[in-house]
């Protein structure tokens, strides 16, 4: 029976936990921060590299390595920007951290700022997350009042300010370069890379963008050591991660698991199985952009490598479960509608492709599907893959290609039995 492994949630799962600064300090908070302030920044980067921490926002890029790319000696300020634009459908893990234990995340943010030499960190929170924004602002105010943030963090001479920046409802701003454009006060259009943000990011200065959960791991890594963190997962998949479980399960929720756990265990042990005792049809394992998997593929590790082995990805570790009664064509139409709405319109393959895919799927739903249209749908998906400035084109294409190849009979049913033409 799979149980949670509590690292990031150790305070949150304590019913008596007081999330204020006082409560956090009483639970052993800021031990890691004080330890970090006594180290050299390069030493912290090395510890994070040793821990094997990989970014929790979707791409799974090694965090320590990302930090080491920061341009040095440019004479410009360096920035750490936290990506709290959690917009991938299915994902609601960062929200838990910001709402229920903001001080833990902020400690991680402060450690990150010190490690890359940033004196003003920005937290880009999606605009709809008013409760999280209020929670973070209150927590930051407490840190200023206690004299921790400001000109001299814990007497180390390190100057640090933190600011919460409010987004305004655009999925694309979760893409790091679009996020930086948005933070600069522009439309959120992804940038052509290189130059990468580590060379030219916020206002043209060296910038690192890290996810909330990634930064929240830092206090644990520093106090318990990189080996303890590594032990929570198979090789190359270090640490616990937060799974946002949603859809047709009995107990949806955000769970913290080690990467040794399998998808089956997450759905049946933590999620309590499928609602109404029905059979499982499939799982979208890592946010709506990850390729769908069928019910017979769920006996794999829910880790970066476990999922890439079966041709999918862990993404933002948002697991959407659907039962045998789900109409996958309708489901794909809903996903495609999302990408069509959220495409920033900069690149033609994505702007036009998401629109065409949505039209074709609408044709299926209105009984006008055909074999030719099914092939065209697949081709539209192919044309979006790898042809755009950012990954939104691929994100829209993955579900299209995977739904069509994993559930071909369901698409055929639409024009072979229900279409007026077929009838």
């Amino acid at each position: 029976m799979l149980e949670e492994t509590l690292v990031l949630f150790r305070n949150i799962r304590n019913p008596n936990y007081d999330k204020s600064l006082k409560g956090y300090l009483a639970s052993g908070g800021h031990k890691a921060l004080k330890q970090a302030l006594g180290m050299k920044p390069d030493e912290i980067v090395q510890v994070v590299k040793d821990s094997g921490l990989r970014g929790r926002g979707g791409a799974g890029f090694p965090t320590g390595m990302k930090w080491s790319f920061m341009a040095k000696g440019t004479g410009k300020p360096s920035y750490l920007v936290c990506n709290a634009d959690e917009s991938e459908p299915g994902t609601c893990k960062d929200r838990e951290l910001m709402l229920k234990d903001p001080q833990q995340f902020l400690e991680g943010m402060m450690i990150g700022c010190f490690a890359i030499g940033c004196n003003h960190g920005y937290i880009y929170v999606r605009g709809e997350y008013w409760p999280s924004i209020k929670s973070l602002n209150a927590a930051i105010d407490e840190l200023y009042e206690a004299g921790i943030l400001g000109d001299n963090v814990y007497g180390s001479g390190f100057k640090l300010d933190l600011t919460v920046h409010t987004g305004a409802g655009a999925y694309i701003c979760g893409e790091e370069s679009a996020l930086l454009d948005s933070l600069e006060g522009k439309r959120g259009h992804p940038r052509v890379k290189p130059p990468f943000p580590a060379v030219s990011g916020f206002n043209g200065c060296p910038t690192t963008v890290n996810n909330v959960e990634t930064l929240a791991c830092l206090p644990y890594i520093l106090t318990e050591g990189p080996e303890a963190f590594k032990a929570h997962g198979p090789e190359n998949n270090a640490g616990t991660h937060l799974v946002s479980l949603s859809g047709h399960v009995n107990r949806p929720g955000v769970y913290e698991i080690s990467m040794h756990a399998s998808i089956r265990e997450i759905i049946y042990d933590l999620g309590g199985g499928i609602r109404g005792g029905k059979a499982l049809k499939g799982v979208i394992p890592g946010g709506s952009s990850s390729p769908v998997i069928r019910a017979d593929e769920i006996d794999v590790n829910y880790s970066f490598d476990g999922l890439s082995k079966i041709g999918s990805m862990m993404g933002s570790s948002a697991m959407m479960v659907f039962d045998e009664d789900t109409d996958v064509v309708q489901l794909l139409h809903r996903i495609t509608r999302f990408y069509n709405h959220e495409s920033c319109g900069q690149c033609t393959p994505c702007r036009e492709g998401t629109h065409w895919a949505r039209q074709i799927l609408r044709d299926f739903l209105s009984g006008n599907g055909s074999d030719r249209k099914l092939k065209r749908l697949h081709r539209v998906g192919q044309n979006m893959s790898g042809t755009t400035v950012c990954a939104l084109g691929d994100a829209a294409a993955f579900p299209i290609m995977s739904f069509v190849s994993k559930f071909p009979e369901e698409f055929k049913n639409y024009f072979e039995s229900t279409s007026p033409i077929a009838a």
Partner: protein
Amino acid sequence: MFSPDIQKQIDHVLSRYPIRRNALLPILHLAQKDNEGYLTQEVINEVAALCEVTPTHVEGVITFYTMFKLKKPGKYHVQVCTCVPCCLVGGTELLEHTEERLGIHAGYTTDDGVFSIEEMECIGACSYAPAVIVNEDYHEQVTPEKMDQLIEQLRTQA
């Protein structure tokens, strides 16, 4: 002219960024809050001057982000999520129910100006679906019955 409280918050926001344009999004949120939830040409011009950008730049930004409104919303802006996790557990039906109950489609405001409805893409409450935001507050695992109660409660407050 902004109200004194909002002006104070705007001044604070401006002090947090290296250049004034960076503060555009947070300032637009504040300006919108100060003007019954939407932005007029007058407000746009004022924000543009504050952030040292052209009004056209501000208009470009406003039309890119869904949270900035050019039309006055209801006193209670009911935002129903129908994205993937919510639609799996009844978000679409909840939106239809809300539309029927209030007698307006998503994107419109009731004649008395109390309610408006918006269909949302993922609002990040997926494990607590179906979810709804009213102004700034989240309501989770909302059933049609709970929605009816919520609407009644808001109507009496209005």
